[in-house]
């Protein structure tokens, strides 16, 4: 075992030790020790993986496993990238947890104990998924990941809604795991479940396609792709905020990792139509997710729907990569792949940041409904400041990180090579159109998120009691916010790292040279084609703003006076006159009414106490899930007619079966 792999293994073992160690400590001490140590181990993970060389592949064995066998493990550039992502985000989340769970040590020590046990276990299991080099190890880690996160989701299990969300999560996680198990069963060669054996095998297009579809179902259920997304907006908000941040920021990426591992490593030669399937499913998921995000009025549900959107974008990026790769255009494929990996990293940072910020809001106000929040920028300046960075990043605006990956993805869409299938040339721009629409809509959703929660007047909440985040929380959020900015302004450094990774996945041609003009300029393919320099842009923006300020102050004056808001001269102004979260989403509701189920109660004009109520439903419940449960109930009804729980009846059945068998036997024997 190489030193890097050994370090990674030891860090995973360290997380396990922390989990077990928390059992012997008191709740308060385990909080004080476990979270900072988790953060330390996360940083160790990042350091160990950053030093790993792209071309080298380390393999080894863990001396534990099912039925006395050993578990093969492997560290290559793909797992390294995702381990770095895990380390960077979980370091921040662990720091945050050290402060966030402080109150619980008095009020709910038992629940805190559960957190300190399952939290390190959750981290270790995600690391396990990434290093496993056999189907056994992978599935065990995958299941531990699902279960440990389930325990964290259902922390407040005395609330009915959370129990229901937890059940739904468990159900979908296991449906997905079932598909994965069948998928690996199909992949196995002569009963050998090691990935190394699977890589060697030659498969026909038919069986490879079945494996791909099973994998898409399994990983898609974890990533929340349409129509398997229903658990995501329920489970993510139910968990405590640091756990939500970890689930949205990191756990969903495990599905992406699995898909990439399956497509480019285990199967090897993806077919072109898989790419089409992935693009269609991914784009529809992204569009649906962002529309629903814009309509939510619970802060964490809004963020969860936005995660659905982002995972959709990532999977459509995978589809694009597959399409280019199968057409033999590895340079463009590398651009698409690098863009999507970049976006995965970005999403982990800004979504983690926003979930943590919403956790601080929740902690300070005890309120998740946007209808009650507002004006927090004046009482929580720290949280509002970092949340603004997260908001602008998520909305995909320059010079923050969300824009870089969107820009790269658009460049990949623009570089359409000639496909053997002529109609593909024509339909690919539609994917770009969806990407543009999704980007613009996520801007809408983010203005709603930030504007309603942090700006405006407080909506009936007593803000004098609200406090800003503590030091642990602040440092964690600053870490992620700094990441958003750095990933935004130093794209060449990130792309330089990703180049090695795309090359190992796509072959020697699969690299994009981005630094034709030096490290300042991001120039994919050639400087004639396109260039973008976020660092210069940031400098220019800063210069422009400062010069404006200086010029105006110097030439004129800086006097101002405070007065009540003017508002076109209306004398009475209350907080009720601002847009509610519902009101802000109204145009979306109006325009896209046909897409989702909408039930509206509009009061009668004569009603002395009018009450307006509208609710948006996820149509997949009524289209897919309700009929499915209905079918299940009907069939069990039919079955219950046969099974009357009376011994005489059952004896009769046995007798009749026996008679039938006898008749069969006597009939076949002459």
């Amino acid at each position, binding site marked *: 075992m190489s030193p890097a792999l050994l370090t990674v293994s030891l860090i995973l073992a360290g997380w396990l030790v922390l989990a077990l160690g928390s059992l012997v400590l008191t709740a308060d001490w385990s909080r004080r020790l476990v979270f900072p140590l988790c953060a330390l181990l996360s940083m160790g993970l990042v350091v160990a993986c950053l030093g790993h060389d792209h071309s080298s592949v380390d393999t080894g064995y863990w001396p534990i496993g099912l039925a006395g066998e050993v578990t093969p493990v492997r560290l290559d550039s793909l797992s390294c990238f995702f381990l770095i992502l895990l380390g960077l985000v979980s370091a921040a989340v662990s720091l945050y947890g050290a402060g966030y769970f402080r109150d619980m040590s008095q009020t709910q020590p038992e629940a805190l104990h559960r957190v300190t046990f399952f939290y390190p276990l959750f981290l270790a299991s995600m690391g396990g998924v990434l290093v496993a080099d056999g189907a056994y190890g992978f599935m065990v880690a995958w299941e531990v990941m699902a279960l440990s996160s389930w325990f964290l989701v259902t922390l407040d299990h005395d609330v009915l809604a959370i129990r229901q969300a937890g059940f739904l999560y468990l159900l979908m996680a296991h449906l997905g795991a079932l598909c994965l198990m069948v998928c690996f069963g199909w992949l196995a060669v002569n009963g050998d479940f090691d990935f190394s054996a699977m890589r060697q095998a030659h498969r026909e297009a038919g069986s490879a396609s079945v494996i791909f579809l099973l994998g898409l179902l399994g990983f898609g259920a974890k990533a929340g792709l349409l129509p398997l997304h229903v658990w995501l907006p329920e489970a993510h908000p139910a968990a405590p905020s640091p756990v939500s941040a970890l689930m949205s920021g990191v756990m969903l990426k495990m599905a992406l990792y699995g898909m990439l591992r399956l497509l480019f490593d285990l199967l090897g030669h993806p077919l072109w139509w898989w790419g089409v399937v992935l693009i269609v499913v991914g784009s529809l998921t992204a569009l649906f997710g962002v529309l629903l995000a814009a309509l939510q009025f619970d802060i964490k549900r809004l963020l969860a729907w936005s995660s659905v959107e982002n995972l959709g974008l990532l999977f459509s990026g995978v589809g694009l990569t597959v399409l280019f790769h199968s057409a033999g255009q590895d340079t463009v494929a590398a651009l698409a792949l690098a863009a999507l990996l970049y976006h995965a990293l970005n999403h982990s940072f800004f979504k983690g940041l926003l979930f943590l910020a919403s956790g601080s809001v929740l902690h300070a106000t005890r309120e998740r409904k946007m209808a009650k929040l507002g004006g927090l*920028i004046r009482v929580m300046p720290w949280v509002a400041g970092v949340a603004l960075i997260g908001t602008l990043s998520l909305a995909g605006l320059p010079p923050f990180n969300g824009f870089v990956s969107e820009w790269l993805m658009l460049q990949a869409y623009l570089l359409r090579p000639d496909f053997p299938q002529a109609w593909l040339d024509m339909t690919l721009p539609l994917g770009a159109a969806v990407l543009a629409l999704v980007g613009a809509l996520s801007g809408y959703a983010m203005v709603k998120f*930030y504007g309603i929660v942090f700006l405006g007047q407080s909506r009936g909440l007593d803000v004098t009691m609200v406090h800003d985040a503590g030091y642990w929380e602040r440092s964690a959020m600053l870490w992620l916010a700094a990441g958003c900015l750095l990933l935004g302004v130093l794209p060449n450094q990130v792309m330089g790292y990703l180049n090695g990774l795309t090359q190992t996945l796509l072959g020697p041609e699969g690299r994009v040279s981005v630094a034709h003009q030096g490290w300042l300029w991001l120039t994919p393919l050639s400087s004639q084609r396109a260039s973008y320099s976020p660092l210069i842009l940031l400098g220019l923006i800063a210069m422009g703003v400062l010069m404006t300020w200086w010029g105006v102050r110097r030439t004129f004056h800086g006097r101002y006076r405070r007065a009540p808001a003017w508002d076109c001269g209306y004398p009475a102004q209350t907080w009720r006159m*601002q847009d509610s979260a519902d009101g802000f989403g109204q*145009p979306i509701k109006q325009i896209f009414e046909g897409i989702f189920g909408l039930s509206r109660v509009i009061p009668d004009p004569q009603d002395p106490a009018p009450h307006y109520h509208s609710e948006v439903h996820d149509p997949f419940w009524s289209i897919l899930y309700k009929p499915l449960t209905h079918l299940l109930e009907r069939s069990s009804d039919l079955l219950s007619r046969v099974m009357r729980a009376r011994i005489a009846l059952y004896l009769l059945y046995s007798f009749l079966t026996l008679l039938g068998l006898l008749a069969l036997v006597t009939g076949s024997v002459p």
Partner: protein
Amino acid sequence: MSAWVWFFQLIQGVMALLLAPLLMGWMAYCRARFQHRRPSSLWQPLRQWIKLFHKEVVLAELASPLFRVTPYALFGILALTAGLVPMVLTDLPLSGAVDVIALAGLLSLARVILALAAMDVGTAFGSLGARREMLVAFLAEPALLMVIFASASLNASTSLSKMAATTLDRGFYLYPSLAFSGVAFLLVLLAENGRIPVDNPETHLELTMIHEAMILEYSGRHLALIEWANALKMLVYFSLGMVLFFPFGLSRGGSGWEIALSFIGFIIKLLIFGVALAILETVSAKQRLFRVPEYLGGAFLLAVLAILLHDLLGT
């Protein structure tokens, strides 16, 4: 030579700052003429803003730092974009830092910041304006990106200088795809700048206003900066349209005479554009707000159609 290039970069920035109010003044002048009113001076917008700069700022009690920073940020960002779009010379030293997609990103950054500032004070009109602005934005922005896409496919580049240069080399041809995306761009330009079929910059009629609703709480120098930034945005859209569809007249450096000629050409194009927009605004009426999605959806589809046409017909 390189010092000259930097000098021109600087000159263009300053020129844009001055041309923007004159463009607004010229458009108001033409409109007044068409509507048989007595026009005000071309310098009127600039005079207005200087007056505002001298006045005291009245700040709403609840206004947070975000509200106070926004005018400066808005002006800084839009002045920057105005400095980066090729207006006279195709090649500017800094235009490589921002390609056309990043330019669209900068414009939407400016818009998001203003929408957030509008929600900051928490008045009825502020959030109403922000909501309507974002409604227009989420339809107009993808349409703009698709327009850009169509041109970028034709020129195999998204760099502004390169796109202009390629079109100049090719000479003037009427491409069907460019015709479609040109119409889409015009629709987007009107919507994004709050011109007549979508918004009316001259009224404070509460039921219909979008942009004005957002900036109701601003006064004094803040208001002047925002209005100036808005004028800059108009200029940016105009020069962007010129780069994408009609870069003829742009100079690639060369002698001083050529540059001077190119500058005059730019002014003439600007004057014609002002007249055309004034005619358009005089003969058309403002739409209801709920017709706007259809209008902009139409623009989006036209632009997508342009790309498909490009793929179908080739270059």
